[in-house]
């Protein structure tokens, strides 16, 4: 008897992003609002983190509600129907519990029936990771079109009396659809982790987020630029080819420091640098796709732009890749 022969298959060689969507709550919290509660000021917050206001989910708006809205918009903006999508990935680190996951219910509510669906947790580095997994699923022939969503609801994870953290984090969701392409539109992932620094960002016993702000700042302003550069190299490009830098919106000072370092290494002065944190706050895995959607809608990025995505955060985890703007 001959042994049964397993089949493995491959999909299209190239993939690209097809469109973006996003969702944020209607609650706008200004720095002055926060300074009525904790000892801080508009000037301090603008100077240290660059945030002017942040958006929080409405009282009755769940993480999944935001993921559904962002995902549905991304599908529509890609010129597709939900039935054209077969896989949904939600990158998140603020789901209230591990069961059920966010992706299955999100897929169903958008109308992607019986989707392959799973969540992915790489904290603020989640979106580039998820885009990469999506791209490899398509290239490997396991999926045809993948909806990649970043969604976070930090409201419950913030100690609103802790002035070092309540000024930074916010809620929201951003999404992108990925599918087969004639030409490569998603570069390889440059990713890694520093698990020895796990204690730098975590939860307190009461379940509130804490971080060693200064150490995180030091790490982010020294270790992230080389990852970004590596992603450009892996894509076979030079830093001068990059039209747009969309880094995780952790702190505007970190983003500006990264842009400065990349420019010193050859990136162009006219490279567009995402600064969505100014009005959105830090939304972890959602910050990159929210920025992409806002910038596309505002005409700040255009079809064909070469964009460098860079995520970094709790874990510590980091990830970067080059994508072409749909």
């Amino acid at each position, binding site marked *: 008897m001959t042994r049964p022969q397993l089949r493995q298959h491959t999909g299209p060689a190239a993939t690209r992003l097809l469109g973006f969507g996003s969702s944020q709550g209607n609650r706008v919290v200004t720095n002055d609002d926060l300074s009525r509660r904790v000892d801080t000021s508009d000037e301090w917050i603008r*100077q240290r983190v660059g945030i002017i206001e942040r958006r929080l989910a409405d009282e009755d708006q769940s993480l999944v509600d935001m993921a559904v809205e962002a995902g549905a918009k991304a599908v529509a903006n890609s010129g597709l129907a939900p039935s054209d999508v077969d896989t949904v990935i939600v990158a998140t680190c603020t789901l209230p519990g591990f069961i059920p996951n966010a992706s299955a219910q999100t897929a169903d509510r958008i109308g992607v029936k019986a989707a392959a669906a799973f969540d992915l947790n790489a904290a603020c580095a989640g979106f580039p990771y998820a885009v990469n997994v999506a791209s490899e699923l398509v290239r490997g022939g396991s999926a045809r079109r993948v909806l990649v969503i970043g969604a976070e609801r930090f409201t419950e994870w913030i100690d609103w009396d802790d002035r070092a953290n309540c000024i930074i984090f916010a809620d929201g969701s951003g999404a992108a659809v990925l599918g087969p392409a004639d030409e490569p539109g998603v570069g390889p992932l440059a990713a890694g982790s520093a698990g020895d620094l796990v204690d730098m960002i975590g939860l307190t016993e009461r379940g509130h987020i804490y971080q060693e702000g*200064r150490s995180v*700042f030091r790490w982010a302003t020294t270790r992230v630029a080389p990852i970004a550069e590596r992603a450009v190299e892996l894509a076979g490009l030079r830093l001068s080819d990059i039209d747009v830098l969309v880094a995780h919106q952790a702190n505007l000072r970190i983003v500006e*420091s990264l842009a400065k370092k990349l420019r010193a290494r050859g990136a162009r002065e006219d490279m567009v640098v995402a600064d969505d944190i100014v009005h959105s706050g830090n939304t972890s895995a959602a910050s990159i796709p929210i920025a992409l959607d806002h910038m596309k809608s505002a005409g700040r990025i255009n079809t064909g732009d070469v964009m460098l995505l860079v995520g970094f955060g709790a874990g510590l985890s980091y990830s970067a890749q080059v994508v072409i703007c749909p």
Partner: protein
Amino acid sequence: MSNEEILKELRAIVEEVAGVSPEDITEEKSFVDDLDVDSLSMVEIAVQAEDKFGVKIPDDQLANLKTVGDAVSYIATNK
């Protein structure tokens, strides 16, 4: 490396990171109060100083470096 040489290099770093003009950067000046260099810029200055002088300036030590002179003597003793 003499203290004068350390100060000269440190001036260049502080100017580059925080945009302070070099002539204002003298030993008695406080980074935060006189030069308007905040705690995050101090981190960036420390990182560059580590590279330049081959010293380690951990975050908890950094908090003790109040004046430019503090930084110069820390670098002189620890490099």
